[in-house]
């Protein structure tokens, strides 16, 4: 049996990766793996920010499924729980406060590192990928030294692409050495432009995107270092590595910055790549990140978990054709978000319907014709009524 590794990268847009068609290569290492991967071209997040998306990635359930969101509901099943029960060693390494022990994510792990004890700064409000790698390496070394042959499930998460976008000089130079901004200037761009969601100056938006790209380049080196470690420890050949992100990031595609509550492609389309599963190639089927936990359980040869709402991505030919769903609450209001400002999407093949429930505003896009989602065809599309009727029952079920 192979070990399974879930490698997640915060805020990584699908279109930032070379293997997903970006011209200039920011991800040479990840791209170089593609001959040994299954690459899903239509992966969908279950929400546009961490709290909304990670219930899909780690619990195969939806954000608003268990009432008003306040940390991870005990009713959800983290993928680590059935694995640990089956005798698989489980370990987690990350630095995202929304996934910390305090909020309930430390369940079913033999080892859980959330970095909340570390001192961080506003300039770098998380533990960097190289430090995550060092901690993972230490754990893997002691694991392989113990040599008791138990299979393991490892989850690691890199935060480095997440704002405030203050890349180190060497990554600046790798992407665009003509940028001479100081770190103070980068921080002020974050405070004065990004935090204010100010898109009035296109040059500043372009600059923000460049800084973002530099972090993408940085993370590619962490992925490379991580794979090298796996190889050196003799673990890589016996591992399946699932790589994905929790959501993307917006650079004025739809009038804003960062990742709030929108359901557009720059936030919802995610890279999803499976390395080392035997089969390789490209899969164009529409899939959800809620399919990840069932896939992990399948890879360990365990019985499906009833509570999981997704479906195993493997074997590929057993995957049912189905729609994808996601939801979010506007986070910009007061803490915890304004419950009156909730949004939902449902996608079938290349048609995506979005509803902003608080204002009863509907959008429908044909992503095949209109990948940038600028022509709302809700009033003209013959498919509108059927999609609306499919999304409606999923909306606001959490209020009752």
């Amino acid at each position, binding site marked *: 049996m192979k070990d399974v590794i879930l490698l997640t990268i915060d805020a990584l847009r699908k279109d930032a990766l070379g293997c997903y068609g970006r011209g200039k290569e920011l991800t040479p290492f990840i791209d170089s793996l593609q001959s040994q991967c299954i690459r899903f071209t239509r992966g969908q997040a279950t929400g546009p920010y961490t709290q909304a998306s990670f219930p899909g990635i780690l619990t195969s359930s939806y954000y608003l499924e268990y009432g008003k969101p306040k940390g991870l509901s005990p009713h959800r099943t983290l993928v680590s729980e059935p694995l640990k029960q089956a005798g698989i060693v489980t370990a987690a390494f990350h630095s995202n*406060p929304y996934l*910390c022990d305090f909020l309930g994510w430390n369940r079913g792990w033999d080892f859980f590192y959330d970095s*909340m004890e570390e001192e*961080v*700064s506003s300039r770098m*409000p998380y533990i960097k990928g190289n430090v995550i790698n060092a901690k993972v390496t230490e754990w893997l070394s002691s694991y392989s030294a113990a040599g008791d042959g138990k299979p393991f499930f490892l989850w690691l998460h890199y935060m480095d692409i997440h704002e*405030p976008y203050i890349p180190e000089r060497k990554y600046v130079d790798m992407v665009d050495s003509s940028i001479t901004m100081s770190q103070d200037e980068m921080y002020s761009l974050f405070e004065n432009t990004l935090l204010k969601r100010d898109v009035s100056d296109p040059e500043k938006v372009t600059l923000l995107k460049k800084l973002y790209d530099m972090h993408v380049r940085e993370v590619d080196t962490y992925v490379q270092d991580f794979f090298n470690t796996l190889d050196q420890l003799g673990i890589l050949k016996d591992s399946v590595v699932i790589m994905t992100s929790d959501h993307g990031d917006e650079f004025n595609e739809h009038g804003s910055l*960062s990742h709030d509550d929108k359901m557009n492609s720059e936030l919802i389309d995610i890279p999803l790549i499976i390395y080392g599963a035997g089969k390789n190639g490209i899969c164009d089927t529409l899939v959800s990140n809620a399919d990840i936990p069932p896939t992990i359980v399948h890879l360990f040869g365990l019985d499906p978990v009833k509570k999981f709402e997704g479906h195993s991505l493997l074997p590929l030919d057993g995957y049912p054709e189905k729609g994808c769903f996601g939801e979010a609450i506007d*986070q910009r209001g007061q803490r915890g978000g304004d419950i009156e400002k909730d949004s939902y999407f449902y996608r079938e093949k290349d048609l995506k319907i979005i509803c902003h429930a608080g204002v009863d505003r509907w959008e429908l896009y044909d992503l095949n014709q209109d990948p940038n989602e600028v022509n709302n065809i809700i009033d003209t599309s013959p498919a509108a009524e059927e999609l609306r009727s499919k999304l409606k029952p999923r909306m606001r079920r959490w209020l009752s």
Partner: protein
Amino acid sequence: MTGQEKEKRCAELVGKSKEVIREAFKKFNPADIAITWTGGKDSTTNLWIIRQVCAEDNIDLPKVMTIDEGDAFPEITDFLIKMSQKWNIDVEWLCNFDVLKCCQSHLGNIVRVKDLNERNRAELKRIRVEQDSFTFEAESEAGNHLMKTVVFNQFVEENNISAMFMALRRDEQATRKHDEYFTKKEGGYLMPEHTRISTILHFTERDIWNTIKSYNIPYCSLYEIGYRSLGARTSSNPGKVGVPAWEQDIEHVPERAGRRQDKEKAMERMRQLGYM
């Protein structure tokens, strides 16, 4: 464990701590080291061991500091005063009096930012607290920063402290499992550079109580009535009321029941990431 085994283990644990302390005195000039003392069981045991080494090796006890965050248990304050007299220690009491003045030393009162002195205003700006006022709570983000971090940093800077003896234990949290005795904290945005020396890292909560009992180390009376971990008054809760800490199910029930601090930490990170 028999009484004899217990005592042997305690002697070994204390011996290990003494090695760490002696190593620290080789690495750093004792005059540039400070000891943090909260009055809790861990930092009192820690101080007790350091005092022993100083007496044995004829070294002056490094500076001892304690932070009054404006929400201390009177029992702890009494204990600190009583013990500092008994042990003849000149304790540095650190306190951000400016904040206390602005809220009449009363928890829950509103602090208006414009009433604060320049340094405190600048500090709030630094952590991006931009409201005009905040409620004074020791472990809120603003309260925590002003009452603890700011005074701590000021102390380290003004006394040219290069290392601090601290009373962290590996068993407090899973994430401390791999901690080292000496941890260099790089100077940066929120703190000046210094090295943390965790003298009693290898003790468990049970070891602390066994050591306190076998060496008759004094402890604050709150542990007798059920508290297991003492922080700020409003965010510490007793474990089992009326049952002394050392008689509780230490091995199975977590030590830190008051988790207020963890929440504030998470909120601060979220804010730094640009949320809220």
